[in-house]
């Protein structure tokens, strides 16, 4: 069984919420990857979203943009990232989801990308500039058993949410802001209703992400869904050596049992 599917099922069985942190591959050097993954695994994260640096990340806010630029300055390529993951895969257990833009995968070559992901034990892919209308060209990723995670947003109509969730794999990534990634102070009041609506329609777990940056955000969001994804805040914490705050965020997700 796919490692990510298994991890999400375990959450469900144990009546736990999922927590998926995002880190940028190659930020601080690829040699740091193993220790970051092990730290997150040990702290209780359900899976890790591993960002692939791209020169033109239109869905990302300043924090992730800067992390990407730092990574690119280190010379990180997608080839290097997959090679590194292959190298450490016997030491790391936590499921890994790649988050990368369409062009990175196309430039790699779809066939090679799929093969290398399988070898590296990658569980899934999130492609933020790939709406369902364009998914067909990446179908070989799905065929190989790598989960293609779909996103829904606050602007997706009921009709679209139905269509997107109908063919969903792994989990649904419910984007919680009208906007790009980045930390936020407050969320719009429509959030709870929106998450519940997505959850009602989705056959797979629904995880909320974009802007979630405090333990309170985490506690709020998990009332209406199956877990959270935290990006910019995790990057900031690793960047400034505040790993303890990462643990606090993860703990916040454990505080509530499924209703």
């Amino acid at each position, binding site marked *: 069984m796919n490692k990510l599917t298994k991890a999400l099922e375990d959450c469900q069985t144990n009546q736990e919420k999922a927590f998926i942190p995002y880190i940028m591959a190659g930020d601080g050097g690829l040699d740091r990857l193993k220790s970051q993954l092990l730290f997150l695994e040990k702290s209780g994260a359900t899976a890790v979203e591993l960002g692939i640096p791209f020169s033109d990340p239109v869905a990302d806010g300043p924090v992730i943009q800067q992390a990407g630029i730092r990574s*690119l300055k280190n010379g990180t390529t*997608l080839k290097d990232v997959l090679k590194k993951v292959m190298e450490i895969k016997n030491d790391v257990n936590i499921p890994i989801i790649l988050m990368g833009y369409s062009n990175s995968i196309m430039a790699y070559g779809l066939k090679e990308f799929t093969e290398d992901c399988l070898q590296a034990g990658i569980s899934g892919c999130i492609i933020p500039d790939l*709406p369902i209308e364009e998914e067909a060209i990446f179908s070989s990723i799905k065929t190989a058993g790598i989960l293609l995670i779909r996103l829904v947003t606050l602007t997706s109509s009921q009709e679209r949410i139905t269509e*997107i969730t109908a063919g969903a794999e792994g989990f649904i990534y419910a984007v919680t802001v009208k906007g790009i990634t980045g930390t936020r102070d407050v969320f719009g009041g429509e959030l709870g209703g929106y998450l519940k609506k997505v959850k009602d329609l989705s056959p797979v777990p629904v995880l909320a992400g974009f802007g979630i940056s405090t333990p309170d955000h985490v506690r709020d969001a998990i009332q209406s869904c199956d877990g959270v994804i935290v990006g910019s805040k995790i990057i900031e914490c690793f960047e400034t050596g505040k790993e303890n705050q990462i643990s606090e965020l993860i703990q916040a997700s454990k505080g509530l049992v499924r209703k």
Partner: protein
Amino acid sequence: MSTYTQPDKTGHFGAYGGRFVPETLMAAITELEEVYDQSKKDPEFQEQLSYYLKQYIGRETPLYFAENLTKLAGGADIYLKREDLNHTGAHKINNTIGQALLTQKMGKKKVIAETGAGQHGVATATVCALLKLECIIFMGEEDIRRQKLNVFRMELLGAKVISVSQGSGTLKDAVNEALRYWVANVDDTHYIMGSVLGPHPFPVIVRDFQSVIGKETKRQYTEAVHSLPDAVVACIGGGSNAMGMFYPFIEDETVKLYGVEAAGHGLDTHLHASSLTKGKPGVLHGAFMYVLQNEDGQIQEAHSISAGLDYPGVGPEHSYLKDTNRVEYTSVTDDEALEALVMLSREEGIIPALESSHAISYGLKLAKEMGKGTGLVICLSGRGDKDVETVQSLIGGSEHE
């Protein structure tokens, strides 16, 4: 050739185009597609558009027989489509007026746009002043430094200019930032894309609004010469003036079409903007198209003496027309373009934009190879006033007592 029907319903030109955008934008571009389709059948909208094209922009523009240039070339008769005579000095406004009217039709009050040299920014700010729309222009900090006068022009017209320092601080980064702003403000904001780029339906909308160039040219040429031209030449940045010029001729197989990219310092250097010649297919700014990129898929900086051609991609329809060989794509260096600018100024008393000078340069070469009695149209996409300072710094003015 069978009837040309690109793109398909999903916005693909063969393999190219599509909608590679964050899910948040899907609702907005679907709405845009619907409103645009309605507007095509809406006589009131079409009447409004024609009114502004004629009374505000000054269309139609002349198709001018360049007699001196023709003599100099000694081959084909050369005609210039005078897009430089439009209000604001380039073809860009053909598109911005159309999209601003669409913005009104959608009930949106705010417009954003990207700009490199400032031409599209000025054309957007202009129509926003006219139609009372709030206007925000995203411009790379590097370009703001290089194009101070156009920044002031936009501000004079009431637009807010936002300096983009992200990435390399140039046009592609301005597009990224405009897209990010759009994702966050999509409810009340329309993004006026400046060329035949971006997710479907933008490449179609921009092509259609610009195809007034080719439609007029075809009619004017036929009236004057009683046949179709043998060849048509246009410069290519993102590809909007070329697409507007070519589109009405695509099914006329006898008309050869030539798109001219910027070769910058030369195609064997890294300093050029020849995406179709030196790039490979990839996704940038929402569409699958030819893009300048490295092996890892990182987008590379383009270079051209003309800021309007300085973009590392070329729209999806051109990518398709390249692969199907309907259009021949070629390139002209900075030096050749500069030389053509001076030449046209001296020969015809017309100072062309540096962008258009690329088309002039190639057109002159081509006319020499074509026999007498043949006809060639060059799209003179804009006037050169904006470039006078650049040109002066490169070739120097003579000293005066």
